[in-house]
């Protein structure tokens, strides 16, 4: 019972609550930013009518989603069907908990932060699988097969590129990887490992099912994939999880490649957030720039390009670390 109120436990709970708030607020904000960016890229204003410059549009959308009926398809396994969106969202706070937002701001100080994030990221595949299968709908099932093939394929070069950085630093602790890099851009890992950063970024976009790799959701073209049967907030949670995953991959890229919270003049969480949001904006911009890839192109890009390149990069890194000692 006394363990229940131990400082470490209270700290963890507080961190989780703070992370949930952060993720929810970001989900709303990114929904708005996404639509504004889309609007301006197409030289139109984007949401404008609800609130000043459409600021309350996300709230209105959330209200609409909450108000919708939650329909379970006939013959579907209701328990698994409604577990899937929760499972898509559940690991997200856990992935943030080891993230060093600054030198001394993190939820859980662990030596295995990177492993923690990568293992919980795997939950998403299970969620997609469940959503597609439990919907009792062949289009959902096909969508799930597509999404799982994509997620599994891109996980491998992502792991390999991250592994190269871990080798360089000699640690799986995100705090240590961040501390290993200096304040100035040329001291960041992206300069030592540009190929790994590129591979990581492409894979991260594919892992989060963002365009141009958004075959899992393509609403009008591919019957929305695994989301076909989800109505109201079921769909909303899946989308919130997508935005949260976008934040996670940007955070990880910031820590691993862009120096984490370190910055030239003012080190701290502000630099971290600035780098993270720059990456998020780039991902959003890419969605409105590139056409969606075909499925064979998607798999070819992974298996014929990213995989061999990541392997070559890893072997070269290992070679150099052996030769010059690395960290």
């Amino acid at each position, binding site marked *: 019972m006394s363990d229940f109120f131990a400082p470490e436990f209270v700290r963890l709970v507080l961190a989780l609550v703070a992370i949930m708030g952060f993720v929810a607020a970001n989900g709303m904000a990114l929904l708005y930013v996404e639509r504004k*960016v889309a609007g*301006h*890229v*197409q*030289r*139109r*204003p984007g949401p*404008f009518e609800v609130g000043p410059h459409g600021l309350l549009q996300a709230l209105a959308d959330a209200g609409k989603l909450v108000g919708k009926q939650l329909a379970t398809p006939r013959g579907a396994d209701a328990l698994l069907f409604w577990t899937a969106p929760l499972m898509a969202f559940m690991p997200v706070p856990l992935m943030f908990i080891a993230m060093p937002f600054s030198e001394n701001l993190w939820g859980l100080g662990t030596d295995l932060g990177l492993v923690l994030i990568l293992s919980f990221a795997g939950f998403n595949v299970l969620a997609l699988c469940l959503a597609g299968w439990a919907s009792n709908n062949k289009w959902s099932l096909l969508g799930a097969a597509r999404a799982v093939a994509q997620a599994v394929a891109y996980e491998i070069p992502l792991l390999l590129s991250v592994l190269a950085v871990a080798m360089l630093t000699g640690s799986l602790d995100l705090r240590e990887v961040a501390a290993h890099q200096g304040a100035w851009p040329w001291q960041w890992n992206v300069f030592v490992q540009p190929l790994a950063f590129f591979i990581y970024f492409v894979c991260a976009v594919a892992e989060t099912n963002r365009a141009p790799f958004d075959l899992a959701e393509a609403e009008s073209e591919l019957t929305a994939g695994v989301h076909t049967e989800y109505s109201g907030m079921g769909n909303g949670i899946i989308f919130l999880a997508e935005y949260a995953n976008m934040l996670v991959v940007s955070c990880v890229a910031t820590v691993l490649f862009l120096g984490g919270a370190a910055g030239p003049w003012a080190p701290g969480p502000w630099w971290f957030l600035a780098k993270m949001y720059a990456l998020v904006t780039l991902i959003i*911009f*890419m969605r*409105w*720039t*590139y056409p969606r890839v075909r499925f064979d192109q998607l798999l070819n890009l992974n298996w014929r*390009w990213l995989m061999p390149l990541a392997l070559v990069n890893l072997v070269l890194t290992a070679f150099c670390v052996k030769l010059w000692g690395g960290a």
Partner: protein
Amino acid sequence: MGLVAAFSEALSGLKSMVVGLKVTGTNFLRPQETVHYPRQEVPRDALATFRGHIELVGTDDDPALARCVGCGLCMELCPSRCIRVEAEDPPPAEAPPSVAHTMSDLLMPTPKFRAAPPSQAPVARKLLGYHLTYHTCSLCGLCVQNCPAGSIRFSSNVYFAGEARETFELDLMARLRRQSGREGGKP
């Protein structure tokens, strides 16, 4: 495909992706093309190519008077049958003078009606009404293309909306008079 060729293709593909980002980036920074409709309206010069419902063109002397000669070609051509032209028929030509009965007339009876011989002077038809049922119009533009008098053009009436079907049954002659300021009311 050789390795070198594959790599050069990949690099050129990467370059094209950067170019794509540049395109969207520059568009992002340019001013908007759309307008916030109830508060702003589309500038007139942006409507030059807009195909609204058709309208009549006034003569050079009197903008309230249509150039239309009432030939009815537009009405004949219209695939949707949404144009109705009312024109005064030309004064009936005088019947040809009946010829005295001859032997041939006895063999072949005289037709009761006989077309008037083509007159030399152009027959002036007077346009009485020009009605457009806009809700069946498909804006194909055959009438505009084929009007021999150049009397029809597309209007730039963008904000044309209504709740009743009658709103879209237009009297284009009255509209032309209104536009020229002869009668009050909205153009």
